[in-house]
């Protein structure tokens, strides 16, 4: 009864550069955007895509969202799509929202007094500023709001948009996440709770991992009912087929150690997609590089996928860009879809030392082919010529059929678990 949902456009601004191609191509090639223990979007210049006024009136997290949204909507051919604005939603998650504005305005309050606070402070700092601003810019007049679930916010936004389109509340929806929290307060706060890596190294699933590296950025996807997309002649990049979300109800910041809540979310997403565990050809892990997450997530993947878990490539985008908090789930969904399309699982950069009991294939060193039912086959390794580029190139792929189905895991402080299932077209 529910409608099939396609992805027709993706966009990303990440520490690997501006644009989704920079994200997938550079990550697949094993490059990292992390410098000095931070994942900054150094190449991002809002003035290239936004007017002076748009830039001035927006916190950086909204600026990042706007630029990623422009890319996704352009790829989807939105301007000429002819979809009614009233039938188009806009849901954008964030972990914290305009924390940079909060901090700078608090400086003003303390140093200059209450009367000097900017009239733009609230519209800049509110956590729904990105969704409201992006909807305004593109005249998206359906359901519009922000999701706030820490590091699962981007995935929750995608899931909420999926339901909206499946159910017929909208024909299309711009979904994603955005975060810009590389500020003194956020840094200090994550540091005192020992969540950040003191060495500044993001190496998810490695035995030596010691915390996450914070990054900033945004990821966006344009999703549409398949019938609507095909009727207007759009070419789908793939399908958004499933969504599962649960809560640990265990601890406000620590994951439940057995990964039970996360495993339920994975199972729910697969059930929603009508996919058997054996069909999952790639897992884009939450993989934060914290001791607790990566162990619990390994348990969850094993619990949800059973014996098949040992044969599936599992890699973490955070090894290349750090942890983008509320943007992570959206950026990683973009990366997952493009990886499935290319047939290559990008590597978990820096993974070298196995920890006892953490025995999945974390894709060390170099990208590897995503193969259908990879457990049944001996895989060819990727040649030294480098990875295939995104969007369909397949020159260096082995002759086993490429797996089309992948999942992207996102877990957030608060005990939030959100998993989406994607399929390349």
């Amino acid at each position, binding site marked *: 009864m529910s409608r099939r949902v396609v992805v027709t456009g993706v966009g990303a601004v990440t520490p690997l550069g501006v644009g989704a191609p920079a994200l997938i191509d550079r990550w697949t090639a094993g490059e990292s955007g992390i410098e000095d223990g931070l994942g900054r979007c150094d190449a991002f210049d809002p003035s290239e895509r936004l007017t002076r006024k748009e830039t*001035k009136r927006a916190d950086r997290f909204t600026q990042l969202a706007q630029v990623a949204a422009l890319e996704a909507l352009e790829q989807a051919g939105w301007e000429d799509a002819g979809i009614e604005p009233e039938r188009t939603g806009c849901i954008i998650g964030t972990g914290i929202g305009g924390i940079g504005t909060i901090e700078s305005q608090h400086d003003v309050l303390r140093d200059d007094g209450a009367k000097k606070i900017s*009239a*733009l402070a609230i519209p800049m700092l509110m956590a729904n500023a990105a969704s409201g601003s992006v909807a305004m810019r593109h005249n998206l007049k359906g359901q519009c709001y922000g999701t706030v679930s820490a590091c699962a916010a981007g995935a929750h936004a995608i899931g909420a948009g999926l339901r909206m389109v499946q159910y017929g509340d909208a024909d299309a929806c711009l979904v994603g996440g955005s975060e810009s929290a590389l500020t003194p307060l956020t840094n200090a706060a994550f540091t005192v709770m020992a969540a950040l890596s003191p060495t500044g190294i993001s190496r998810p699933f490695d035995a030596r991992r010691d915390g996450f590296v914070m990054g900033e950025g945004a990821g966006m996807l344009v999703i549409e009912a398949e019938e609507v997309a095909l009727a207007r002649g759009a070419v789908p990049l793939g399908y958004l087929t499933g969504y599962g979300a649960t809560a640990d109800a265990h601890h406000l910041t620590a994951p439940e150690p057995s990964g039970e809540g996360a495993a339920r979310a994975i199972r729910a997403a697969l059930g929603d997609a009508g996919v058997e565990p054996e069909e999952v050809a790639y897992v884009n892990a939450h993989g934060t590089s914290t001791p607790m997450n990566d162990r619990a997530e390994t348990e969850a993947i094993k619990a949800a996928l059973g014996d098949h878990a040992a044969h599936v490539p599992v890699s973490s985008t955070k090894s290349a860009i750090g942890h983008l908090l509320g943007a992570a789930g959206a950026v990683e969904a973009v990366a997952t879809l493009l990886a499935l399309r290319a047939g290559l699982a990008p590597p978990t950069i820096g993974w070298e030392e196995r920890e006892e009991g953490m025995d999945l294939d974390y894709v060390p060193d170099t990208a590897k082919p995503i193969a259908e039912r990879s457990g049944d086959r001996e895989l060819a390794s990727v040649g030294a010529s480098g990875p295939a580029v995104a969007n369909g190139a397949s020159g260096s792929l082995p002759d086993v059929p490429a797996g089309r189905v992948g999942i992207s895991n996102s877990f957030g402080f608060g005990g939030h678990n959100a998993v989406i299932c994607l399929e390349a077209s």
Partner: protein
Amino acid sequence: MAATVTREQIQERVTEALVELGAEKDDIKPEAEFEALDLDSLDLVELAQIVEEEWGVEITAKDMESMKTVGQALDLIEQRAS
């Protein structure tokens, strides 16, 4: 209050402020309406803060209701600054 401020000085500073707020410099003329310059009530609050800092002139929310053009703002500031 310090030395008398001239209309030209006010106009220069207000123009600079409106550009900061996002207006196009060439469009800023006394007869130009704020709405046409794409400046809204939030921008006018920002302008009022700048004006108060520069010349100690207070522009209230009530003043702003009837302040539609750049020229009206200049008049009000000039009148209160002298």
